[in-house]
């Protein structure tokens, strides 16, 4: 049974002077604060919410509004820098199609590695293997290195792995862009079955049609603040100034 409770949840990034090769989208200037001689970006500001079992939440908002940051806090990548977060349930996340895989080894070996990372034994992974390959529709290329896969193929494989180890909380960031309609339908069905088993899904996306299809709740983030959290259609109405 999954549950997520955020109490005054804050995340602020330090703006370091150290050269960094990462390119971040420019945040709105009001997000920036100076404490002493250090600057921070307030990526999340005092979020309070409770996501209960069986809920499917779509995170909406402009680039740099905090959607990805919130997903990463929920996924345990970032620690909150203020307030607190409580999660219950096994978490599986899919943030980026290029992270956390070894491009030079085969799809098959990557399944093993990701399974081990999720704490599965080699025996359990072997048992799940046919199902993952079948779901991702990659039977013919599963022995090839991942670098030869298209974005869509990569996404199918990662999604299949992320959902196969029966997570209770599933976190997805902009994952759907690379999938074709056929796979999107399949993926939506799988997410629904997960939610029916008292799980939670949280998805960040700019694709309204998709979110309306797979989510019942929407959370609107704007410059790190939560502007609205409720039934997704109503949240979109609010967002559009209705």
């Amino acid at each position, binding site marked *: 049974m999954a549950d997520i409770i955020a109490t005054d949840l804050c995340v602020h*990034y330090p703006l370091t002077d150290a050269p960094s090769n990462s390119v971040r989208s420019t945040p709105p200037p009001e997000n920036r604060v100076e404490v002493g001689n250090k600057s921070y970006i307030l990526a999340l500001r005092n979020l309070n919410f409770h996501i209960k079992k069986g809920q499917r939440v779509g995170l909406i908002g402009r680039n740099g509004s905090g959607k990805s940051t919130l997903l990463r806090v929920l996924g345990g990548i*970032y*620690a909150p820098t203020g307030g607190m977060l409580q999660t*219950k349930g096994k978490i599986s*996340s899919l943030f980026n199609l290029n992270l956390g895989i070894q491009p030079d080894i085969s799809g098959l070996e990557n399944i093993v590695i990701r399974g081990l990372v999720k704490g599965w034994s080699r025996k359990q992974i072997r048992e799940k293997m046919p199902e993952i390959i079948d779901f991702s529709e990659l039977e013919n290329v599963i022995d090839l290195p991942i670098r030869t896969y298209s974005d869509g193929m990569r996404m199918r494989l990662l999604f299949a792995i992320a959902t196969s180890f029966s997570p209770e909380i599933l976190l997805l960031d902009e994952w759907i862009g690379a999938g074709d309609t056929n796979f999107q339908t399949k993926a939506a069905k799988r997410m629904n079955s997960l939610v029916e088993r008292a799980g939670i899904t949280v998805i960040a996306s700019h694709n309204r049609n998709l979110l309306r299809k797979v989510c019942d709740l929407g959370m609107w983030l704007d410059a790190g603040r939560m502007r609205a959290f409720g039934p997704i259609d109503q949240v979109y109405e609010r967002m559009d100034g209705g």
Partner: protein
Amino acid sequence: MADSGAQEDYNLHEAVTVYELRLGTAIRDITEGLAMWRVWIALSWHEFSSTYRRSLLGIMWVVLSFAGFVFVKILIFSSLLQTDSNGYYDTYLVLGFFIWMYLQQSISASPDVFTAAKGWIRSEPLPFSLYIWKSVMREFYNLALTSIVVVIAILYLGTPLKNGLLYSLLGIAFLLLNAFSIKLLLGVVSARVRDISHMVKAIMMPMMFLTPIFWMPSQIGDLIKYLWWNPMYHYIEIFRAPLLEGGFPTASWIYVGTLYLIMTSLGFLSFARFRQRIVFWF
């Protein structure tokens, strides 16, 4: 808070304020990392083998390049130094250079241990110590492969070795543990201050000549008084001395042991302090 009845099975993510020493988090990270040995062994092996994956000779290149290097070194330096003919110097050079290669590779890569794993760190909530063990293992595979050359060279040179093999192996085991601490310390510091990475590489370069690998301590007169304090000397000595001179190099062990305790404490404290912040520095 977390243990108040109904909330017992919640995972609590408490806020990390900026100035705080989180010993519990650090200890948990390190023990969980150890428990996930299957993951770091698998990851390190795939990383190691995929480096040579699409080449004909594959992993044998590790052996070949080391063998070529050793051969040229012996050729040049033994004729240069006009040493004795019973192969003692050549053996000295092979054993010393074997450990030096390991040290150089391991220490130079240490500052990048977390920054190189940034893709993983930003996508999976794994213990950070796992990435350290992964690097330690990958370097160990290299060491194990190059040891083939050392064995062949010693058989070929035919120098009688003292039977200190167990002490030497103990030295290797220590070096692996030591590598963990160096990576922990340099990894954390360098994630914040990127200069460390360049600095360490710059220091390791001349270090090869400041360390008794090609020359012997007896050959440089008074200078050894200062060069004795070079830790690289003793990292090599705990492996080389038991085989060449026999016995247990006590002074070297005391020196590297003390250094180990200092580095481990500093590394652990900085890890406890910054573990939760590292991900924000990428």
